């Protein structure tokens, strides 16, 4: 706690502060568009664009760091040449209004893309980013970050963390860039009073008590370390998985990708890296047609075990961040919370 700096930002100063920040970097924040969707959007004009902090951004930060489709190389067939595309020089970017779960997910991706070697394009983008989070005083409908230990407020990982105290934000700075920012723009802030700390603590306690869903995630993780999941559960889930891949695509910690060559004319094309999903049957099919995974029974097994068993074993923490994005979007209603319910209810009927 020694190098951690805490200050108060009056809400009136938010836009003036962001305006200063956006001079040196691209500013990305949740914006509600004309179609009623709240998306992380690059903001070019703070006077005409309203930042939406009331709704959960539809997508996490994943598309900014691991895009749905990323061009790795161009190829030209005449002369057998391959032309590798230097990853687009990453822009300095400040992400504002990021929720705790989404930053937690980014920290997990840092881990994934650092082993065995650092993924250049991911790390280029990552090292040019600064994340300003907003602690959640009121969880969204499907959230369960308390169960995954990734919110509603965070202890570390952020550049800055904002907590809404009504007419002012309680701002904590992380190490490095965040602390530098506070130093540079200190004149927008004022000192933290004892009252502010009391309110912040109270809000934190209240937030923790407001989750709609009680997900026994820790219990499920421990159970998975000790025993096998009954086969009926996998089959019951697989029967209702229609292979859209949506859960993996919206998940902020699902990082499966595949690399394809896409011809664009008779003699040229691009090599792309794009999102993939381990729930698909073809994901594990080998040359010759053999498939070690029987999708009809185990469609969701890899995904759930990876998140709740293997990652728990190797990092001591499940790689589900409780953002709730996969809940309610599953065509068959078999999202991770259904699995956890099936698994834990079975023991405590």
């Amino acid at each position: 706690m020694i190098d951690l700096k805490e200050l108060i930002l009056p809400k009136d100063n938010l836009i003036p502060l962001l305006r200063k920040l956006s001079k040196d970097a691209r500013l990305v924040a949740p914006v509600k568009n004309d179609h009623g969707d709240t998306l992380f959007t690059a903001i070019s004009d703070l006077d005409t664009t309203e930042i939406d902090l009331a709704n959960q951004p539809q997508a996490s930060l994943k598309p900014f760091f691991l895009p749905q489709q990323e061009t790795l190389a161009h190829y030209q067939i005449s002369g057998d040449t391959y032309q590798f595309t230097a990853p687009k020089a990453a822009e300095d970017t400040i992400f504002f209004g990021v929720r705790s779960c989404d930053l937690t997910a980014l920290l997990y991706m840092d881990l994934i893309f650092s082993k065995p070697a650092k993924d250049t394009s991911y790390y280029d983008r990552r090292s040019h980013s600064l994340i300003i989070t907003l602690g959640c005083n009121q969880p969204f409908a499907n959230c369960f970050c308390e169960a995954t230990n990734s919110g509603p407020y965070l202890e570390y990982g952020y550049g800055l963390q904002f907590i809404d105290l009504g007419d002012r934000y309680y701002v904590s700075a992380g190490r490095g860039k965040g602390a530098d920012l506070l130093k540079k723009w200190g004149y927008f802030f004022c000192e933290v009073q004892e009252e502010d700390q009391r309110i912040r603590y109270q809000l934190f306690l209240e937030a923790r008590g407001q989750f709609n869903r009680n997900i026994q995630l820790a219990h499920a993780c421990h159970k998975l370390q000790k025993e096998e999941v009954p086969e009926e559960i996998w089959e019951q889930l697989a029967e209702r998985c229609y292979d859209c891949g949506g859960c993996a695509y919206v998940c902020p910690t699902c990082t499966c990708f595949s690399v394809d060559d896409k011809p664009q004319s008779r003699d040229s094309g691009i090599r792309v890296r794009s999102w993939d999903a381990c729930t698909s049957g073809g994901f594990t099919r080998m040359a010759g047609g053999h498939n070690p995974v029987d999708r009809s029974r185990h469609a969701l097994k890899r995904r759930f075990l990876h998140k709740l068993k293997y990652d728990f074993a190797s990092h001591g923490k499940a790689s589900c961040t409780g953002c709730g994005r996969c809940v309610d979007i599953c065509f068959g209603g078999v999202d991770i919370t259904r699995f956890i319910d099936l698994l834990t209810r079975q023991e405590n009927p």
Partner: protein
Amino acid sequence: MQDILTICNYCGCGCGVYLSVDNDQVVGSYPSKNHPISRGNLCSKGWQLHEFIHSDKRLSSPLLRKNGSLQEVSWDEALDFTAAALMTAKQQYGPDSIGVLSSAKCSNEENYLLQKLTRAGLGTNNIDHCARL
């Protein structure tokens, strides 16, 4: 990078889908959460909707059959040839010798225009599409 909301091109559900556009290339597609049909998710076809747009198999120029094979020609040549051929058929065999198939993949405006052209221009009601297939 720009995200444009449009409607999925596959089935009759009609999901609201964003196309991610980077430098005139469509590089992604994802659902609208607020849209009454897609409600935050797409089927596997919808999530891959961007894939066929820049396919190398897309037709790139009008083609006209010359000496038995299809050859690239200008728009004017293809359009003039087609208009003349349809008018010839109409004059020689009557309007009902011409058949037109419209498309359940095209827009309302395009379907409207094509049936208007068929009825008012060619003078026949011989127009249908694959509703039954």
